[in-house]
């Protein structure tokens, strides 16, 4: 059992962070970032061609992280691979000792750096969760027996602030039914929206790790509101950043408040610090 899933199961508050594989072949920067993470971070998400921009396959970085004693959460999107490739990668991940998964639809290639790519989406995120369930039960999606079954802790992404709430939540329920063992949320800024979401999600019995995004300045906050679906930075936070002498410090303050919110409502927090991993200790204290 991975530390991450053990702690979640034990009801401990978990902290996760995020690292992107390089656009190139040198891994020292990413590994250095991982090494510098404070001890409170129990697992690290490794992103999969994030925002549909081509980078190194996350499997390599995740495997190397694990070798160094940093526990990875391998992200996997449905955008780039059909069901055969996804299952093959899942088996490879298991063989490399990777247990934690975050299964996503993936952003559409249209806005990434390869807009001419043929989008795959052979499975959707719910069906990818089903594929993981099948593999864990010793069968592939075609019903054929595996010589040995992998062990995974599969998770899924949720967007608590998406509207209409009922529509978004029907999919959340399907993800739970398809075997999601944890939910990681899109960056949340409103305690009210989070509380409503948690009220609905609690009966499903799936622990929720709240996404906390470090706001670096007011410009970034406005950009998020305009361009990132499901993210709503309230105007009072934007004002705080705009008026602050040291916006990044204000952002760290805001993130600290959000971590406190997560502690009140959720089972963990996922920190997205975008290159400011050195501020994580501050955010957590």
């Amino acid at each position, binding site marked *: 059992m991975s530390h991450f899933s053990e702690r979640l199961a034990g009801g401990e508050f978990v902290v996760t962070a995020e690292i992107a594989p390089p656009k190139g072949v040198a891994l020292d920067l990413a590994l250095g970032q991982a090494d510098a993470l404070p001890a409170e971070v129990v697992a690290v998400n490794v992103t999969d061609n994030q925002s549909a921009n081509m980078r190194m396959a996350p499997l390599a970085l995740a495997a190397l992280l694990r070798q160094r004693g940093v526990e990875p959460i391998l992200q996997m999107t449905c955008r780039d691979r059909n069901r055969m490739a996804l299952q093959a990668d899942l088996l490879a991940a298991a063989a490399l000792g990777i247990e934690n998964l975050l299964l996503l639809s993936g*952003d559409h290639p249209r806005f990434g750096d390869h807009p001419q790519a043929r989008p795959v989406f052979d499975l959707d995120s719910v069906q990818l969760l*089903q594929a993981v369930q099948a593999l864990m039960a010793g069968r592939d999606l075609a019903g054929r027996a595996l010589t040995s079954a992998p062990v995974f802790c599969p998770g899924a992404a949720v967007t608590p602030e998406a509207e209409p709430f009922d529509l978004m939540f029907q999919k959340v329920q399907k993800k739970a039914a398809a075997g999601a063992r944890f939910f990681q949320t899109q960056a949340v800024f409103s305690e009210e929206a989070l509380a409503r979401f948690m009220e609905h999600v609690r009966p499903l019995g799936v622990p929720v790790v709240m996404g906390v995004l470090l706001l670096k300045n007011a410009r970034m906050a406005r950009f998020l509101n305009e361009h990132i679906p499901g993210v709503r930075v309230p105007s009072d936070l934007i004002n705080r950043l705009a008026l602050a002498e040291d916006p990044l410090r204000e952002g760290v303050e805001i993130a600290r408040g959000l971590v406190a919110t997560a502690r009140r409502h959720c089972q963990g927090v996922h920190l997205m610090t975008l290159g400011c991993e050195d501020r994580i200790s501050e955010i957590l204290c």
Partner: protein
Amino acid sequence: MIISRQKDKAELLHHLEGKHKLFLVGCAACATACKAGGEEEIFQMQDWLAAHDREVTGSVVIQEACHIMRVARDLRQHRTAVQEADALLVLTCGAGVQSLSANTEKRVIGALDSLFLGNVRRLGQYEEKCSLCGDCILNETAGICPVTNCAKSLLNGPCGGMEDGRCEADRDNDCAWLLIYERLTRQGRQGVFARVVPNKDWGRRHQPGRHRL
């Protein structure tokens, strides 16, 4: 119907290199309705070819160019003109081009790009509603196809990219899943939300497809 449009003229010229005498073929069905390969477009093509020093040996607008036997018959009736030509320039969808290439050893040059199976809003305005997946889910989705109308062909509900009911891949488009949800709600039923839809059987989309119905 099959929506098609004429290829870029520069591309077409490239395909016509070394071909001086051409026999033209149009289609009286879809390609005519799309104003891409009907009688009118055949005349225009003739003028354009003349302006580019090409000779037209003859032409025919076939009733339905996707009909393989009909194409065979019409070609036989124009045997001499076809014989004289260096190549056939075909203004039909890809299915029509292949009816032609199955019926002649001559070089067949397609002049159109086939786009999709289209619904007609009004002439010139077409919408892709069905991608012929072979495993139709419309009865559960209130008659709105997620395979075609969702940019990611998701089968179990919207992705995280939906914002204000608009699609992540094109903010000018409604998210198909919002439309499905709203219509199901108006109909007072759960439809596709009542179950986890398993992965799609793409094997039911026979490719290459041959059917005897």
